[in-house]
């Protein structure tokens, strides 16, 4: 029983972290109609900035959790204004190519700035050690990740359903021309949404830093996982991102415990099954050709 409980909690912390990252990918896609291949690289940038702020500048973890994502969001504003604005009017392929180029640029910049080695960030003193849940001991930090995930989930739901900014974003996602006709400055919305997505990715990066190794391959891993999440859940769907992330979390949490030999393949098998049964994902619609 305790084994199942621990696997379940494990699935939850992996799943909610993936949700935070994949939902950013989804929001950006919804408004910009661009899949940001560099999303994982921005997540990685968040983790590396947190490492530098904490270990090199001696800042507390909590300050890094606020500062690093804001820096990444600022980088995203620059990317949007200097690079992406050239291709918004063009074919989808061009935006895919351009964000792929950004992925190469950010990955290699991180590698040359911080080196190829593995970096470690300690969790803050408050969150070290273990607690007992379901009769099994469980790292306190993982519970913190679950809390952060739930807070962001509730916050995003509130943002999209109860605030003006959220409604503007949804309007821009539904019909950009119509939103413009209603005096919404969609250019600013586009920049804001891109920065917001990057901010979410970077929060994921900072939160992941104390429990995962920080290395130049971490962004590659997370972007593949996020793609699997949005394919399972359905591209552009908010509940889809949550469902997809939880499904993938369960695959990791239980697969890692009970099927260690092939656990690395399971997410792809899950994705292939969804593609065979419902190609547009559990909550998706209208992406066939």
């Amino acid at each position, binding site marked *: 029983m305790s084994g199942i409980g621990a696997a379940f909690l494990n699935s939850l912390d992996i799943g909610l972290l993936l949700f935070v990252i994949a939902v950013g990918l989804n929001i950006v896609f919804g408004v910009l109609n661009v899949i940001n291949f560099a999303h994982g690289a921005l997540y990685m940038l968040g983790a590396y900035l947190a490492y530098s702020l904490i270990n090199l500048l001696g800042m507390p973890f909590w300050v890094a959790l606020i500062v690093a994502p804001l820096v990444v969001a600022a980088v995203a504003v620059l990317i949007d204004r200097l690079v992406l604005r050239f291709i918004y009017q063009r074919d989808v*392929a061009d935006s895919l190519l351009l964000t*792929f180029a950004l992925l190469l640029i950010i990955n290699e910049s991180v590698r040359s700035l911080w080196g190829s080695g593995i970096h470690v960030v300690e969790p803050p003193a408050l969150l070290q050690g273990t607690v007992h849940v379901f009769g099994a001991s469980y790292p306190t930090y993982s519970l913190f990740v679950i809390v952060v995930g739930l807070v962001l989930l509730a916050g995003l739901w509130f943002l999209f359903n109860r605030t003006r900014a959220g409604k503007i974003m949804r309007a821009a996602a539904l019909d950009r021309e119509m939103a413009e006709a209603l005096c919404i400055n969609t250019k600013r919305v586009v920049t804001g949404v891109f920065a917001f997505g990057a901010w979410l990715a970077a929060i994921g990066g900072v939160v992941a830093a104390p429990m995962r190794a920080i290395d130049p391959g971490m962004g590659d891993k997370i972007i593949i996982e996020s793609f699997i999440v949005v394919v399972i859940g359905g591209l552009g769907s908010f509940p889809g991102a949550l469902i997809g992330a939880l499904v993938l979390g369960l695959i990791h949490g239980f697969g890692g415990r009970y099927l260690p030999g092939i656990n*690395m393949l399971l997410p*792809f098998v899950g994705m292939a099954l969804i*593609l065979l049964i419902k*190609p547009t994902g559990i909550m998706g619609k209208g992406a066939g050709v």
Partner: protein
Amino acid sequence: MKNAILMAVFVVVLAGLVLLPWFTPYFYIFIATEILIMGLFAASFNLIFGYTGMLSFGHAAFFGIGSYATAMLLLHLQWPLVYCLIASVVFGALLALVIGFLSVRLNEVYFAMLTLAFGMMVFSIAHQWRSVTNGSDGIAGFTVGEFGLGLPLTLGNPAVYYHVVLVIVVLASALLYLIGRSSFGMILQAIRQNAERVSFCGLNVRAYRLAAFTIGGGFAGLAGGLMAPFLRVASPEMLHWSTSAEPVLMSILGGTGYFLGPFVGSAIFILLETWITSITHAWMLVLGIVLALMVMFFRRGVLGTFLDWWQERQR
């Protein structure tokens, strides 16, 4: 007039390639071999992207499996090279059939994500299934024996191997070119321009896309098969997405709108790589910046921009 000049340039370049080993040092023979193999790899990608309009970020999977097929057949069974290469084509095409079956039914954005994800799946398998693929070390230590078909060739000689590569790449490219010019190729181009209209004509768009993807995979497998004896190793890096990025960049660099674009791109890419890696290690950074600038300002590529300008001048 224009076609005659282009044809003459083409013949001169081809003759130069044939005679290359007699007037350049070994170093440039290696470079030329690599350009030809990567050019074929990029051209196989461009059948999928430039012709059919499907942007694949997982093309290294087919290149890599072709490489592993030839390397493993040489290591374990000592087959003549030509049969290994046929096996590489078959494995590349089969893998493309499976991945394509799952990916071509969705739109462009999904297709890009899926090909990348499945490509990385193949990479992870090669990396972790140590008992078969030898993990991160890859397959090495094989010797290339005879070519097969009764041809007495010493493949260990770089100049001889270069000529073998040249002949195979030219024949394969001619075949790819004919596929692109055939009625089948015309339908692929029509799909890129307007898939909806093609399906209104009663054609099965999904089947055509899958066919293009499979053919592209087969040719990528052939390129991979040629690469393994050249590098004397088949390693997981050949399956990684940074390898998938290379044919993408080569095609964009040369120009996706012309058949020879990817080959021109391959030549620029590899010469640039040789030059830049001698000054800095951050090759991928340069690659990313060049790709971004090409997409932003020179979407037609070097060959495309040049031919467009020339066409304009002829009027």
